[in-house]
């Protein structure tokens, strides 16, 4: 009898949580662009968001209709995206200088989708004050208003040629008179799209290379810095092809094999630290031994927690650009 009562309670418990999850919104964050012809789970999430609004429904019946969403980005999805972009023109089209939707899900469209997906300011399409140009930037729009402090969060891209346009996310940007410092180069009198977004076109007179980015305006200079690589015409970004070993301890020397590494000044940016001034005599290999700032604690954890694995993800950055966003090098830290 007790067992039956116990199971009954558990059933209600699990049903409650299943229902709770089902009611908790889309919760998807779109990190990559989407276009017609693609198939991916993100398209399924995209269609669900589009179908949540009758004005942007993918289809009324059949594939793509509410409850029948698919992973395929076809013509109906593209048409729905165009309606979505036109509906939220102030935050998607205007900053890009467009007058009508394109059907391509780029950074501005993703930002709007993410905002809706995460339930942030879902009905202020006409108010650009809290909008953004990068998925991460859904949150920078939450900073506040005119009195907010100046902060630089991140660029929409970390590499590009002169003439390319990037979006800097942050807070405290003023309507006019922002200055972006790209290394020693000052790009002045930049207008902000809103207090959390600056659209910056890389001037033609900037030499190729890796630069620190900072932002200043009448509020002072942002305490944070980011980076951007101005690539030369015809240059090819670093490529990580192989990591050896793939598994090892904290004091392991790691060899990266790939292409387009610089003779000097390569940087490995990892989730466990940034390792700078790395050389590559042949342009194809980088060998480095990471110095972990929390090495003692990490080793203690590896010793205490049976089977613990810590995944180090890393990218190579140099004057040629940044190694592929979707293909980081991976080294698993574990006791072997």
């Amino acid at each position, binding site marked *: *009898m007790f*067992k*039956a009562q116990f*199971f*009954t309670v558990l*059933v209600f418990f*699990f*049903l409650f*949580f*299943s229902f709770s*999850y*089902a009611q*908790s*919104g*889309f*919760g*998807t*964050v779109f*990190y*990559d662009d989407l276009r017609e012809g693609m198939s991916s*789970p993100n398209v399924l*999430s995209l269609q669900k968001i589009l179908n949540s609004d009758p004005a942007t429904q993918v289809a009324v019946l059949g594939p793509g209709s509410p409850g029948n969403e698919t992973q395929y980005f076809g013509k109906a999805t593209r048409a729905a995206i165009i309606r979505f972009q036109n509906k939220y023109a102030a935050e998607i089209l205007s900053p890009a200088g467009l007058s009508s939707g394109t059907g391509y899900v780029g950074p501005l469209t993703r930002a709007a989708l993410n905002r809706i997906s*995460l*339930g*942030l300011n879902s009905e202020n399409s006409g108010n650009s004050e809290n909008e953004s140009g990068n998925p*991460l930037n*859904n*949150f*920078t*729009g*939450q*900073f*506040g208003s005119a009195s907010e402090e100046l902060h630089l*969060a*991140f660029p929409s891209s*970390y590499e590009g040629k002169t003439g390319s346009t990037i979006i800097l996310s942050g807070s405290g940007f003023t309507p006019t008179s922002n200055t972006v410092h790209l290394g020693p180069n000052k790009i002045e009198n930049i207008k902000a799209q809103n207090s959390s977004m600056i659209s910056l076109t890389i001037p033609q007179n900037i030499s190729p290379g890796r630069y620190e980015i900072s932002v200043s305006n009448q509020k002072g200079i942002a305490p*944070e810095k*980011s980076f951007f690589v101005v690539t030369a015409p015809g240059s090819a970004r670093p490529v990580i092809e192989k990591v050896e070993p793939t598994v090892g301890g904290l004091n392991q020397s790691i060899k990266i094999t790939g292409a387009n590494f610089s003779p000097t000044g390569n940087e490995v*940016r*990892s*989730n*466990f*630290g*940034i390792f700078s001034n790395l050389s590559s005599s042949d342009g194809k290999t980088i060998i480095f031994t990471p110095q972990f700032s*929390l090495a003692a*604690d*990490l080793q*203690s*954890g590896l010793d*205490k*927690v049976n089977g*613990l*694995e*810590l995944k180090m*993800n890393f*990218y190579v950055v140099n004057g040629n650009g*940044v190694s592929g*966003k*979707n293909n*980081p090098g991976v080294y698993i830290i574990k006791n072997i």
Partner: protein
Amino acid sequence: MKRKIAIIIAIFLVTAAASGFIFYRTNGAGLPYGGMVITSFFCPCSGNWLLTIGPPMGGTFMYNNTPQFAHEQLPRVGVWSVGLYTPGGICLVPVTHGCAPVGVPKGTITPTVGTSL
């Protein structure tokens, strides 16, 4: 008879739990957070991280070495991170006799997370 009922309920229970889990995994349901990683503390007994995330939507969160979207830079201090978290989580550190929890995390970061580089 009681045994049959128990088995039926158990099957129902597992199905209900699994459907909830699958929905959770598919949609990455959770509460949003976002900001710059200000501090990153490794918890040697639990093998995870206690992170302090700054404004605009910050707090103290656990990061359990789960997969991430680009650029996968948690738990590095200084990166900007945005994603979803679920309430709960614990950071265990060594004490004289065994391990003890520290901090009061707002929640645990789910795999639905992206970072700056």
